[in-house]
């Protein structure tokens, strides 16, 4: 049986992890490679690296990081952040990334999805969508949720699927950082609407939130950052409890 995936997300700036990390057993808390291998050992099913740096050196630093992550860990990982061309993706995949996620660049130029799918295949193209509710309507936002657009979340999701994306990573800006649970109603609607996997993101605070997003939100995977970084939730405990709730997980 296909299992539900647990995905820790690491924010990267200039090749280093950014968010405060509470790992006593880490020699270097800022080293994404070491953190990645710890997560892999603890039972993470996949990892996401989100590059938030904006320097000229960015591409090279990120490619080097991807190379070292691929060299070290034996689970799949996705790289996102500022990817806007076929060349950007080519470099990352050649260095060992399994998937890339695109966000604002796809909204600005939706054909990019088709171009990437034609060159690399659907299986490695994740489209990340940040959205929040405005007057009861889910609207897509850009630049980490700062810039609103007129795009409707559900219409955009359908278009993304039609253009060949292999997966959707949906972050609810209304839930992100609240630790009050995922946007399960919107997630369930998304899952019904598209026939590609949906990754839930934004709002994880407790183990129950994960159970709910798989049961009520119909999510195929759940992504979180701080609850894992600060060891508020340990991945192996989380998966054990999900299993007890009857949710298929890899243990």
């Amino acid at each position: 049986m296909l299992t539900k995936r647990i995905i820790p997300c690491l924010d990267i700036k200039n090749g280093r992890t950014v968010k405060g990390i509470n790992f006593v057993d880490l020699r270097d808390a800022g080293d994404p490679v070491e953190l990645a291998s710890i997560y892999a050992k603890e039972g993470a099913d996949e990892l996401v690296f989100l590059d938030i740096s904006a320097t000229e050196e960015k591409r090279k630093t990120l490619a080097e990081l991807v190379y070292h992550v691929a060299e070290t860990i034996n689970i799949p990982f996705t790289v996102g952040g500022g990817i806007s061309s076929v060349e950007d993706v080519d470099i990352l995949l050649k260095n060992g990334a399994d998937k890339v996620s695109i966000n604002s660049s796809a909204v600005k130029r939706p054909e990019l999805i088709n171009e990437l799918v034609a060159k690399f295949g659907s299986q490695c193209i994740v489209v990340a969508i940040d959205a929040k509710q405005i007057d009861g309507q889910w609207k897509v936002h850009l630049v980490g949720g700062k810039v609103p657009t007129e795009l409707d979340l559900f219409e955009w999701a359908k278009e993304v699927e039609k253009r060949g994306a292999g997966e959707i990573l949906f972050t609810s800006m209304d839930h992100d950082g609240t630790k009050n649970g995922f946007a399960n109603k919107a997630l369930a609607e998304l899952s019904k609407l598209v026939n590609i996997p949906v990754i839930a993101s934004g709002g994880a605070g407790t183990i129950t939130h994960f159970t709910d997003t798989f049961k009520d939100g119909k999510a195929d995977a759940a992504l979180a950052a701080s609850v894992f970084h600060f060891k508020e939730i340990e991945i192996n405990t989380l998966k054990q409890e999900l299993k007890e709730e009857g949710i298929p997980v890899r243990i």
Partner: protein
Amino acid sequence: MKIVIIDYGAGNIQSIMFAIKRLGFEAVLSHDADEIRNADKVIFPGVGEASSAMVKLRATGLDKVIPTLKQPVLGICLGMQLMCHSSEEGNTEGLGIFDLDVVKFSNAVKVPQIGWNQISDLKSRLFTNIPQKSHIYLVHSFYAPIGVETIATSEYDVEYSAALQKDNFYGVQFHPEKSSNIGSEILQNFLNL
């Protein structure tokens, strides 16, 4: 031991190179027929679309080389699918090593299947010491049905072949290089053949 990964411009092979390196071996990437024939082990990777991959194989003559190889050959993901008789993806003929026609999952499930599923009915030296129902990582929209060459099964929409074997030819639908420690053990088993 000389390990050659067949280079025909298909997909990301860096992860396979690293997985082999973690096992203590070096693999070389080659499209040279003699170098491939002289290897102890051959890995036939593949990520992408079936019909365009077959075009690339034909253009380099590798479509004639691969089926005549005598040493253990491991097809991974699309590599395994291309070793079959045909694929519905781009309606292409395959290399015809496995007598199976690759077809697409129905819309009753989400396509592609992405994530960790389980393998059962394991019956080959490739799975020495691998427990039944082990989790492996897959990303695919097309599958090979069950046939006489099936050496591992999995279930998604239908029961399908997670691995195939005919003589010295092996194929796995999953990615051993991304399937954590179980995947490394399966790769090691292949290198032990």
